């Protein structure tokens, strides 16, 4: 991380999270471009609902919902994150240097979520846009019911990958323990390799783009077909 000279510091110690978030928001209103958050100590709901561009660096591990419901800020977490990292963001970027708990980047509509460690279960669940990049392994049912957007997993994916996904694509560099209902593998096109290669390079993530596998929807769950009842029974 490049050091920024005039960095405002907000210390979480001895303060309520509401108070910390208020301090961050006031600094943003005052035009502060870069804010450093100290001693997060795995507390919840840090740096949420920030709706303008600003650099935020959190010096440690965070609890649930960090960076959630944002649109514009670039949040970097030096440690790990709990459940619901960057949930529902519309834009901006959330980077977690460690690992993330369940439901990372759930329902995001845009922006980018980068997890350098592992993601637990249901990362990118109900994804509605944006890009989720996972440097390590990802847990059970990653990309469950995703509707748009891209998920990149550099390591291994657990069972149920892309279960009932409507659209979008999941690229996996490691082993896939099992695809979810109606998730299918498709060949990597030239455009896929180029785009993936750029994403990996931009975020210094491991892997060789042409060796990734691409998972998409099979389209069989898009419309109910009574002649394919078994497909539905398995999915539901």
């Amino acid at each position, binding site marked *: 991380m490049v050091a920024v000279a005039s960095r405002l510091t907000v210390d979480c110690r001895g303060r309520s999270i509401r108070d910390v978030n208020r301090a961050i928001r006031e600094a943003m209103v005052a035009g502060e471009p870069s804010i450093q958050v100290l001693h997060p*100590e*795995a507390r919840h709901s840090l740096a949420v609902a920030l709706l303008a561009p600003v650099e935020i660096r959190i010096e440690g591990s965070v609890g649930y919902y960090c960076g959630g419901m944002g649109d514009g800020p670039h949040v970097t977490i030096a440690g790990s994150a*709990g*459940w619901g990292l960057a949930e529902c963001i519309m834009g901006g970027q959330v980077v977690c240097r460690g690992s993330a*708990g369940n439901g990372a980047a759930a329902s995001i509509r845009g922006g980018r979520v980068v997890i350098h*460690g592992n993601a*637990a279960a249901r990362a990118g669940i109900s994804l509605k846009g944006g890009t989720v990049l996972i440097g390590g392994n990802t*847990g059970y049912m990653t990309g469950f019911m995703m509707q748009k957007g891209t998920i990149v997993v550099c390591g291994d994916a*657990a069972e149920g990958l892309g279960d009932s996904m409507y659209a979008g694509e999941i690229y996996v560099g490691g082993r896939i323990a099992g695809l979810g209902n109606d998730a299918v593998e498709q060949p990597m096109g030239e455009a896929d390799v180029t785009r993936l290669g750029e994403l990996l390079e931009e975020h210094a993530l491991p892997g060789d783009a042409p060796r990734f596998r691409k998972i998409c929807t099979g389209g069989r769950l898009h419309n109910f077909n009574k002649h394919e009842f078994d497909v539905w029974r398995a999915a539901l």
Partner: protein
Amino acid sequence: MCGIVGYFRKADSEGPIGEVMLRMITALGCRGPDSTGLALYGGKRRSGAVVRVKLADQAEPTHQATAILDALAGLGEIRASAVDDGVLRVELGNGAAATVVERAVLRSAPGSEVFSVGRRLDLVKRVGTAAELDASFHIRGFRGTHAIGHTRLATESKVDISHSQPFWAHGRRDLASVHNGHITNYVKLRDLYEMRGHVFYTHNDSEIIPAYLGDRMDQGATLEQALRQSISDLDGTFSYLVATAEELGLAKDGFSAKPLLMAETDEAVVVATEEIAIVAACGPDVHATELPAREVRVWSR
């Protein structure tokens, strides 16, 4: 909600387990403001047992306590006894079987409830916060090898000391568990175990877990085998911890519906519902990871 924590020292020696556990469950206090409890395991192997009994008559506990002590004296030497907040603690000098101890207590004091019998285990719980638990049972100074703890947000059964966790596996010394989640086939399993003579004291679904594990182990399963089997036999959402005299174990349901993180340091294995409790035990530089669905782990000496 609810919060669970576990701490297992790698060394066989005793450490300040009481103080560490208080820090951890205090950190999870907001997940479970209804009640707090700990199952603490002392390092020194006693030849006898520690017994905790909730007295039925909370207004006049002394009379009942005397009756229980008389009955237990018939089984052997009583090394020490005390009543704190309506709960009797007895240190027995003999190694009588847990079922024999429990039967003697219930016969001498109808309506009372045996919270625990253990060679190493001492189980404390109460309605209220971690600070109140310490005020009642003076656990800050407890030294031991491992422990599990619980903060409860009641969702299905009433808020009182009996319905609080941890729960002990009646009939099996030292086995206790703490659970976050719901066991939805609880009624069915409870019927089954009641037919086999197991006594349930509460309507808390979590009480089924140590009963289930004890039953599996009575039939020859190791703790790890019982934990693995539980993932398909228990229905619902769960992350739970279990401890015996020598082991700490965990199991997580097939959907990873409930959180559970673990971290390992040179000194200990630490597990908790939230990282905040792991930070409280090990400091902010600890590296904690969320465990995957269907995870089973056992640590033993």
